[in-house]
């Protein structure tokens, strides 16, 4: 598999809540970076730190080469369903990649596997309906 060093690559994106939000989200706080809010265009990345990587373990799914990107780094997420793109900043560690190794999601004939991205509700709803739960996306550090 080609290394994902600094080139756009593909994976699944889900969405999560953060901040002092309602529901089962209430206890999660403002994420690993301390700045996460459900209403902001933010995301969680599996390799924000050593401690984060030890939890998400994308290498267990064969996804090695995910670069270390720390809090505040800008990532561009494009939905493979409709081509819509959202600009986000990293605000948390996630998703739990190694729990769903090999999982695949398809849309419009395009697929992606493994959970590599988690978006806030504001960011996810810019490119997909929240009721879809997860979509295949293109992740890059350039627009």
């Amino acid at each position, binding site marked *: 598999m080609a290394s994902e060093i600094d080139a756009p690559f593909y994976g699944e994106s889900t969405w999560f809540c953060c901040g002092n939000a309602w529901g089962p989200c209430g206890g999660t706080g403002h994420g690993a970076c301390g700045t996460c809010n459900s209403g902001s265009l933010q995301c969680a990345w599996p390799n924000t730190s050593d401690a984060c990587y*030890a*939890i998400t373990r994308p290498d267990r799914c064969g996804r090695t080469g995910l670069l270390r990107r720390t809090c505040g780094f800008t990532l561009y997420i494009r939905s493979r369903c409709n081509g819509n793109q959202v600009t986000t900043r990293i605000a948390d560690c996630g998703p739990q990649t190694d729990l769903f190794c090999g999982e695949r999601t398809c849309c419009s*004939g395009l697929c992606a596997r493994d959970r590599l991205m988690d978006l806030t509700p504001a960011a996810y709803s810019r490119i997909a309906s929240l*009721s879809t739960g997860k979509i295949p996306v293109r992740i890059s550090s350039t627009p």
Partner: protein
Amino acid sequence: MIGWFAALQPLLVGAVLLWAGAFKLLARRAPALARRSALSTLVGKDRAAVAFRAVGSAELAVGAVLLAPPALAVEAVVATGLCIALLGYLGYARVVAPESSCGCLSAKHTPVRWRSFARTGVLAAASALAVAGAQWWLPAVDARPGPAVVVLAAEALVVLALSPDLDSYWLVPLRRLRVRLSHPLAGSAGFEIPVASSVQQLLRSPAFQAAGPWVRSDLLDFWDEAEWRVLSYTARYGGRLATAVFAVPRLRYEPDAVRAVLVDEADHSVLWEFAPAPAPVPTG
């Protein structure tokens, strides 16, 4: 009688401490577990793995001493102190890092909850009782083997029931067996195709790929029309408010057959249409 009962306790406490110590020293994921536990908050991330293994070594040493002859009161006192210290650590973890894992007996992520406190309390009580033990545990077992097995088995079951990190060894298989026997969700299977299935089929269709960028809402309405399920969404097309209408095969899975139109909300004209490509005519 109390002396005999107390003499059995080092066997229980020693066995649990040996398990806990061996796990901390031998688990491949021990460094990662240490960093995810409240130890990293207590001693710092860099020293968490070392501290984790040090605790494991202490547990192994105390467990081995409890199991080996002779039975000395000071051994039980040390074991009691270790359990009380662990209670303190659990309280610290609950306050400072409530979602962190105990990492006590297995690699399973188990945040500190009441069961962890109760288990450690039981072990502390058993250790304190062991101070009153007048002899090593093996002669006590030999003296009354039947009752000894019953007592130790009951205590072991209590410790097991209070160990969330060991649930996968017994509780999960038991619950799976109950599901296999009782089929609690058997009634969920029905003949009706759930809307989620139609939406999933739509999202995979070329029609949605073509119309998707114009769609602005989530599913607005849906209804069944003969062999089709019709799904409607709000859309914007060239600045005009429209309704995106998709016809999805209801009784078969064929995303390529999905049809779509965009209907202008103002004058109900059809602005755009997507029809499935005709099947290629076989040649030869």
